[in-house]
């Protein structure tokens, strides 16, 4: 079930040119990097990335940049206003004809879930309000990863982080539900919102291809399995990304022209524990004894989400 104008059907159709050169200091097996890599392949090289402090700060470390396009490191809460400043300055020059259309740039904000849900959300909301013409890419690894994996507003219920460990009096770990960033953004009616998974490159690339040709705020949340923070072998990044989709924990969808459509709806959802049991951050739900109530609660939340669509 999809209303995407499908440009790509096969992996062989993807752009062969890489927009992100190798050699970066990001962890081996980083799910978020795979998402960004595929997305930028689609957007091409005439981009400026305004980066928020986070894991991806390590993309460009002086004197190196992996990008064929441009890069501006800002602050943890500053990438969106920086995007505003660059967009405004380009528009001023375009309207004065001191800049040609060939020299125009697409502005892409790259921010982690901590920046997106917490410190940078106010500024992002303001830019959505101003209908800023930009693309936002949130690599969501569900915690403050670059500082060693502490709770963010995106950390899911039942996960253990460095600041919400599972202990005797708080056996669940994180006791709050993950913030619903998709719907928060949606309330401001941006041009486009999509969730993407690195395990679904065709879906991801089609969404970026579609967004590329739209104007206004275009928002992406990329499920970003994190071997270091989630506690799994890097080779399993894609497997875990797949399980997040197959269990229904991470719905693959888009919002466009007022409607939300699931572009990759699991036919028969797997039980959530198939996803949970793969990662150390959920290991306290299974040992020393199984915490069935917590697992059931997670399942119930997922079931409730899908109820209207199944």
């Amino acid at each position: 079930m999809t209303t995407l104008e499908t440009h790509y059907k096969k992996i062989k159709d993807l752009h062969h040119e890489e927009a992100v050169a190798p050699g970066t200091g990001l962890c081996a097996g980083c799910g978020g990097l795979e998402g960004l890599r595929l997305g930028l392949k689609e957007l091409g090289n005439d981009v400026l990335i305004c980066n928020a402090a986070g894991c991806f700060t390590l993309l460009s470390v002086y004197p190196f940049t992996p990008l064929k396009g441009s890069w501006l490191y800002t602050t943890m809460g500053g990438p969106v206003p920086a995007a505003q400043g660059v967009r405004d300055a380009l528009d001023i020059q375009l309207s004065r004809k001191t800049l040609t259309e060939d020299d125009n740039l697409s502005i892409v904000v790259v921010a982690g879930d901590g920046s997106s849900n917490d410190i940078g959300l106010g500024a992002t909301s303001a830019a959505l309000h101003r209908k800023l013409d930009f693309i936002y890419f949130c690599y969501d690894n569900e915690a403050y990863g670059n500082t060693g994996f502490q709770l963010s507003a995106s950390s899911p219920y039942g996960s253990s982080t460095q600041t919400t460990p599972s202990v005797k009096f708080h056996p669940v770990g994180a006791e709050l539900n993950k913030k619903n960033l998709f719907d928060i953004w949606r309330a401001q009616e941006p041009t486009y919102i999509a969730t993407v998974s690195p395990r679904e490159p065709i879906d991801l690339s089609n969404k970026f291809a579609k967004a590329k040709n739209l104007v206004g705020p275009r928002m992406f949340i990329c499920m970003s399995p994190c071997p270091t923070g989630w506690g799994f072998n890097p080779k399993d990044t894609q497997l875990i990304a797949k399980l997040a989709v197959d269990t229904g924990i991470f719905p693959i969808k888009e919002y466009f022209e007022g409607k939300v459509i699931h572009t990759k709806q699991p036919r028969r959802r797997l039980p959530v524990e198939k996803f949970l049991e793969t990662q150390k951050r959920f290991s306290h739900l299974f040992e020393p004894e199984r915490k069935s109530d917590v697992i059931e609660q997670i399942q119930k939340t997922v079931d409730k989400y899908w109820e209207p669509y199944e």
Partner: protein
Amino acid sequence: MFRVRLHGRGGQGIKTASQILGSAAFFSGFQAQDFPLYGAERRGAPIVAFTRINRQNILERGPILVPDILLIGDESLLEDIQAAPLCGADNFTAIFINSSRLPEKLQENYSLSTLPHVLDITSLCVKFLDNGSSTSAAIAAVGARLLGQIEFPALKEAVELELNAQGINSDLRKKNIDLAEEVFQLLTPMEVKERPEKNITSSKLISSEQKPVVLAAPIILEPGNMALRKTGNWRLDRPEIDYEHCNNCLICYARCPDGVIGIKTDGSPEIDYDHCKGCLICAQECPGHFIKTVKESGSWE
């Protein structure tokens, strides 16, 4: 003062080794200081940690440039010009290498200033822990034993303390203690040579000149130059494509986060080993299992 510099790869427990060694020295009545050097690199990337041990107060801080003891936890680092584990070593430096090769061969091949102490830590870790890359207790045991001033009970207490702090369960802690004891017994203390103190000579400082703004601000005008940095040295295992069976489906190409699998003119995938970090997603995802995993080792045999 004993200045110990430990080299390994992210994920091998080098930082913990420096802490076990620090605590073991502390429990033995020494002043001690230990710390890791954090850089941009992650799991698999070369990392370095330090332990200083002294009878008196330690009046040094920061990285150890001239080590008294070098503990090299991963032999492949010796060929790595970025990691440069031998940097600063001189005739007074005792070198330990985790290797299955003969000390004389290692000395000759790497032009070492002294004949290295050698033990196959990786095999011992596999034997005791069923995990060749969990080397913290073993490397710390090497350091403690070579120093000859730390008794096993102090080391044992330090292993117990530091691994417990890491959230390691008691069963695995016990195995690590057994491993440390084995290492302790296999090695003998080294001959300690007193490093003569050199007179201070002044630094060659300059009077900075103002540069044009492009050269004065953090500006990079070479797009994509990150490729100059080789991350191939992060690999513990290498993926190898079995071209006889590969059907060029390019799943591996699509799934590689670092984009280091290119497409050859004949349409087949090709791994860029200069940059492949060895996450092995490609091997895991290959539908026909046509990418095998091969252990990385030094390039000479």
